[in-house]
């Protein structure tokens, strides 16, 4: 039987198979150096057929509270990034050629420097006698130095700085996909700019917002270098606990259990964000 629909399906499947073949080298590489080791690590958590490591992680209040703290920080980073990124993305989507080139340059410039270097730079800026505190004191705006380092504020500043582009780019992409006639039509039908934004542009950009939030949240949850350096031991994220278990206590199975929990939490949040914005994605397809 060969209905047109059936034929189309066959051709589409054949084309898909061809493309899959091209992806094989990348898939092999990922499988060998990423998927396999990760699976091995995760399997360590239940080595010997015991859930004792998970029990320890769940019953010891410390680990649960660190996991919750990590989520809280990841949520805050996500929220701050969203508030800062949306206007930037909106501006970029409407900028002229020069503005777009400059904006993209500024946005992507940090990617050319390693996260480590940028985090050390923040140490110089945020410290008790750092550039910011000294300047503010010189101007007489503050008496005592502001506590910007080795606390949550410092960690947030550093992480937002590193992760902001991951929020801007998906939102920018989804704003670009909106037909410019839509806000124009809204305006022609009587909507002032702000109402056209709230009713048309914002809802249609939700897929980008959702992608950006998921990306930033997931990256934040597992962030290590920046919170380790800027938190100065006062802010503990799950990733730091895991590193500690491996490096100091050589307790690989327990580290594996914590990693599993982190992975599950990440997947759960990811699914939740996807679920919340499913309607918006469907409507704008």
């Amino acid at each position, binding site marked *: 039987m060969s209905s047109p629909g059936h034929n189309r399906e066959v051709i589409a499947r054949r084309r898909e198979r061809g493309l899959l073949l091209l992806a094989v080298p990348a898939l092999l590489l990922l499988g060998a150096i990423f998927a396999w080791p990760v699976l091995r690590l995760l399997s360590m958590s239940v080595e010997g057929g015991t859930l004792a490591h998970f029990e320890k992680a769940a019953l010891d209040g410390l680990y649960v509270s660190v996991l919750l703290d990590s989520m809280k920080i990841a949520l805050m980073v996500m929220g701050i990034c969203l508030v800062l990124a949306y206007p930037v993305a909106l501006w970029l989507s409407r900028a002229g050629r020069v503005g777009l080139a400059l904006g993209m340059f500024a946005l992507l410039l940090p990617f050319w420097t390693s996260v480590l270097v940028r985090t050390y730079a923040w140490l110089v800026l945020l410290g008790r006698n750092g550039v910011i505190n000294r300047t503010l004191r010189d101007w007489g705006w503050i008496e005592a130095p502001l506590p910007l380092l080795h606390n949550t504020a410092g960690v947030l500043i550093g992480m937002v700085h590193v992760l902001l582009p991951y929020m801007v780019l998906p939102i920018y992409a989804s704003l670009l996909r909106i*037909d410019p*006639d*839509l806000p*124009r*039509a*809204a*305006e*022609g*039908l*009587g*909507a*002032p700019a702000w*109402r056209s934004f709230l*009713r*048309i542009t914002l*809802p*249609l950009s939700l897929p980008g917002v959702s992608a950006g939030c998921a990306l930033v949240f997931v990256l934040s949850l597992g962030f290590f270098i920046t919170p380790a350096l800027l938190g100065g031991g006062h802010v503990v994220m799950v990733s730091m606990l895991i590193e500690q278990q491996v490096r100091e206590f050589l307790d690989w199975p327990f580290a594996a259990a914590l990693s599993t929990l982190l992975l599950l939490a990440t997947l759960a949040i990811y699914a939740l964000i996807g679920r919340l914005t499913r309607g*918006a994605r469907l*409507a*704008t*397809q």
Partner: protein
Amino acid sequence: MQLSVQGIVRRFGPVAALGGVDLDVAEGEFLTILGPSGSGKTTLLKTIAGFEIPDEGTVLVGGEDVTLAPPRRRDVGMVFQNYALFPHMTVAQNIAFPLEMRRRPREEITRRVEEALRLVELQAFGQRLPRQLSGGQQQRVALARAVVFGPRLLLLDEPFGALDRKLRESLQLEVRRLQRNLRLTTIFITHDQEEALIMSDRIAVMDKGRIEQVGFPGDLYARPATRFVADFLGESNLLEGTAKGGGAELPGFGRVPLPSTQPDGPVTLLLRPEALRLGEEVEALPCRARGTVIDTVFLGLSAKLRLRLEGGPVVLARIPLRPSAPPPPAEGDSVTVGFSAEDVHVVPRT
């Protein structure tokens, strides 16, 4: 005048997209702006809607100067080329949008949305999303959304371009009926001259940022004011000749009588293909020429022939076909063609 456009100039860099456009549209009138792509018709429509601010000139809607008013203050309904329906809202929400922006009470919105849906015969589709509708249905939603708030003007930007022929024809008639019933002043843009002839009370033909001629469809067709209009609207034979003493020498045809007011000198004569006759009736006509058929195209009701006349020019003839009549002359046949003097129009020289 419901719409009055006066001296509109719009430049993009060194290019003048609109080079001084004047246009008046009476209340309840259906006016079509017809022109090839790049003629400035879309820029003119955007200027009327308020999406373009002209460099010079004035736009009056209902006597009120709206040249600098933002689109939302103009009370103008517009149907975009690709409809611009809000994809995340249902059909009913789309149609309710302009009413909500005008802060109408809830009950009134519900009632008027229902009326509008009935008007375009989509009562059953209020809760669908635009992408669940066919192209023709989407077009009707866009139309309902553009008229639901009782605009002072309705603007249609090539709204049938994406539709197939049959659907286009039925929608053309539907839009026309709707426009008459609502007595809505309507500006319609198209590059399709047939569409313009079907729909319009009057047609404004545009070329290179200027309006070449405004008039009733029949007048434009029979008495085009410029060579461009004669050429763009319908099929035409434009014959160059020399006028002298109330007549003109045409290569192939000989002497053609002209109105006595015609000054001597070179003239351009318009001869529509259907004005050319073939066969026995030609003997009675004053202007005749002999020629050879280059090719014949069968078009159902008629046939289109290209003929090379003895003495030079190639002309197009369109002859009616009747089932009982003999088949039209074929390629290579020798024929005699003729026309009567009153079927000739002198195209003014500019």
